[in-house]
């Protein structure tokens, strides 16, 4: 695993998160759900945050989501200096859990980024991993 000294930060998987990153590399958004109570959840953990069961499983989410909230950052983080102000977003997956992401294929402006707009997942390579990003899904592909 190489971590660049400069450039955008690259996540380093841990054993309990590896299936998520393996899914991303395969073009699938794999998250967990509880086999006992059925509740899907993110971020990856070995125990259901809802009922405490250790009987949890991975499944492939639809990749559909809606835009829950965001900021447009004008003070770029290291590695993000080149593209101008960029949105840091939190999306709500069709299955319920939320995750942070960036929004691609759309101008990152308040006019173009409307809360609750439908989105779908896409994957972007960074270092040795693929990061889930989200892009508008016209035609109401949201949940």
């Amino acid at each position, binding site marked *: 695993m190489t*971590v660049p000294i400069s450039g*955008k*930060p*690259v*996540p*380093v*998987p*841990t054993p309990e*998160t590896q299936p998520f990153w393996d899914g991303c590399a395969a073009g699938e958004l794999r998250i967990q759900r509880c086999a006992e109570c059925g509740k899907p959840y*993110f*971020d990856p953990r070995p125990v259901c945050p809802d009922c405490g069961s250790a009987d949890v499983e991975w499944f492939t989410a639809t990749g559909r989501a809606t835009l*829950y*909230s*965001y*900021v*447009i*950052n*004008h*003070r*770029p*983080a*290291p*590695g*993000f200096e080149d593209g101008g*102000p*960029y949105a*840091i*977003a*939190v999306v709500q997956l069709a299955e319920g859990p*939320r*995750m*942070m*992401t*960036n929004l691609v294929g759309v101008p990152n402006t*308040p006019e173009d980024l409307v*809360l609750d707009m439908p989105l779908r997942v896409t994957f972007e390579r*960074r270092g040795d991993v693929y*990061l889930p990003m989200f892009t508008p899904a016209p035609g109401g592909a949201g949940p």
Partner: protein
Amino acid sequence: MSRGSGAIIAGAAETDQVGKLPGYSGLALHVEAAVNAVRDAGLRLRDIDGIATVSSPGPTQIAHALGITPRWIDGTGVGGTSFLLHVRHAAAAIRAGYAQTVLVTHGQSGRSRIGEAPFRLPPSSPTGQFEVPYGTFGPTTTFTITALRYMKEFGLTESQLAYVAVAQRRWAAKNPRAAYRDPITVEDVLASRLIAYPFHLLECCLVTDGGGALVITSADRAGDFPKPAVHVLGTGEAAEAPMISQLADFTESRAFRLAGQAAFAEAGIGVADVGHLMIYDAFAHVPIYGLEALGFVAKGEAGAFIADGNTEPGGRLPLNTNGGGLSYTHTGMYGMFAITEAVRQVRGEAAAQVESPDISVVLGNGGSFATAGVLVLGRQPR
């Protein structure tokens, strides 16, 4: 048994100066604040038998620097609210007999970064895997991310958000130690440069150097000190999510609410009893979330409540009377300064002294809505 935590704040002080202090390390700021607080209590360092401070530089380092031999130690480090939790833990330790006189210290070279550890999250941590790769860059990009959702759900306007900074500047104008004292308008706030839309520069806290410290002991010693005792009537602490993306609901803070409920219940008070309020204000939306979480207004009403003048000088609920993190000072872990201002108000020695605050409430935040602490402080025991 009477209500309350059984503890008092017998001494409270800040560093001689706050602001830009390149001549001090973070450790030196701890030490100066500690010496000032112990002196404020009319004690000597050898009277201290318990020490509490955040995990870096840590209680062992601070005790060593001060020549204290503690028999009780707390290194709770959960961000800017840690010092409120230290007061709560100290009260419990004093009740249990583990310590009699606890020193709580804060010092941070947040602006000059003298002697401070670099802030770096491992890329294998949950935050390093699931937030940092998306270009987060400190609290300006995380703490703020809830606001647009709140604005959509409750119709909070950009002007109302900006007014939080305007109201607090009116308090700062009365505080000679405040970093920014010149009056500002909503237009000034909205014309300041965008930091992270929808937040402008003047809606974000300062970054400064400074410190503060408290001496906590048992309430049965209330008459033994040069300054009026400030009774710790109620305390609460709570945690929600370490990553802002995993908060249950972006329109409220569960940790704020739970910590507040615990503190109000221990003190046996309601919102109508509160004459003065401090709410951690790293960003302009945080007092809005705090007012609602503590029950001073209904959900969705805090923006209008502030914009109507209720929290500024002359208003019925004085809030952040030192000018807050937005205008007074913000070293990075601001909670100590919220406590020291509440102590000054209850004692009647604040720069912008409000009328008869028999009870002051302090709400502290750690991380980005990750952790919360609440203290109910009073002039009299209950």
